């Protein structure tokens, strides 16, 4: 009891995994497990706000599919950004190729002119 008294002021910096959070929202936890989750809520504004918001969703089962949708969209966003970056790099390449070809042509023309001059 004395330890409990002294520990009132300690901050619960434990992270709650998503599954435990979902179980809490679906009322699947025992009273003791709920208490442990709620100790984190008292100390964490983020967790507290998140739980308040998640409780407002009408269908808790749908939450998982929303999360999956959002994660899939995130994956596409990141892949699109990567593809755009690669395309931008490729777009710059044609100028490089053109420049190299031009330089080679100039060198060849130069050689031809010198050769013609040396062998009239």
């Amino acid at each position, binding site marked *: 009891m004395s330890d409990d008294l*002294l520990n*009132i002021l300690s*901050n619960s910096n434990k992270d709650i995994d998503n599954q435990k959070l*979902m179980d809490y929202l679906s009322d699947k936890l025992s009273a003791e497990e709920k*208490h442990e989750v709620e100790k984190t809520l*008292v100390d964490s504004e983020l*967790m507290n706000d998140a739980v308040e918001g*998640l409780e407002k969703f009408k269908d808790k089962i749908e939450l998982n599919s929303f999360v999956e949708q*959002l994660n899939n969209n995130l994956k596409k966003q*990141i892949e699109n950004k990567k593809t755009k970056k690669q395309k931008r790099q490729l777009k710059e390449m044609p100028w490089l190729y053109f420049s190299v070809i031009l330089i080679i042509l100039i060198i060849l023309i130069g050689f031809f002119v010198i050769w013609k001059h040396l062998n009239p």
Partner: protein
Amino acid sequence: MQSKKYSHIDDAELLHNFYNDHDNKWLGILLPRYTLLLLGVCMKYLKNEENAKDCVQQIFLKVINELHKYKVEYFKSWIYMIAKNHCLMQLRGNKNSLVEINEQIIPAEDITVNKNDLIEKDELLNKMQEAIMRLNAEQQQCVTLFYLQKKSYSEVSALTGLSMLQVKSHLQNGKRNLKLMMSS
């Protein structure tokens, strides 16, 4: 699945990797850890499921485009500030307003009483008991039931007749007041 493959890597390490090579793949591992929480935060402020989902997408895009501009140490706190500011901007309807984001967020100081402190443990206990007695009736009741009798919010609510929201509020305020009294 990617999340399980990288579950041993903490946020700090993922951030470090991102700042090293600016490869968004690290964000692809880090951000999904917060999707559910962000959804909840957005729903709390926007009170609409579709708007909340759109908001989370916008927050992800913002992080992808702007994280490299900041030197973030505590990603959880930073993304919470980003989410809150984004939601508040949406509610105000002013997308151009600048909201100062303090990314140098330091996590809450843990003032767990150190048993090796100068003050003897029993003196500390007495001080704590006195502090609890000085709380108002509701805060005292909630703190006692929650922390000392380890009741859940719903049990405290049932025993006291207070709503869950009131229980949460009394616990947060009660804990804050105890911290103030103990540190004075």
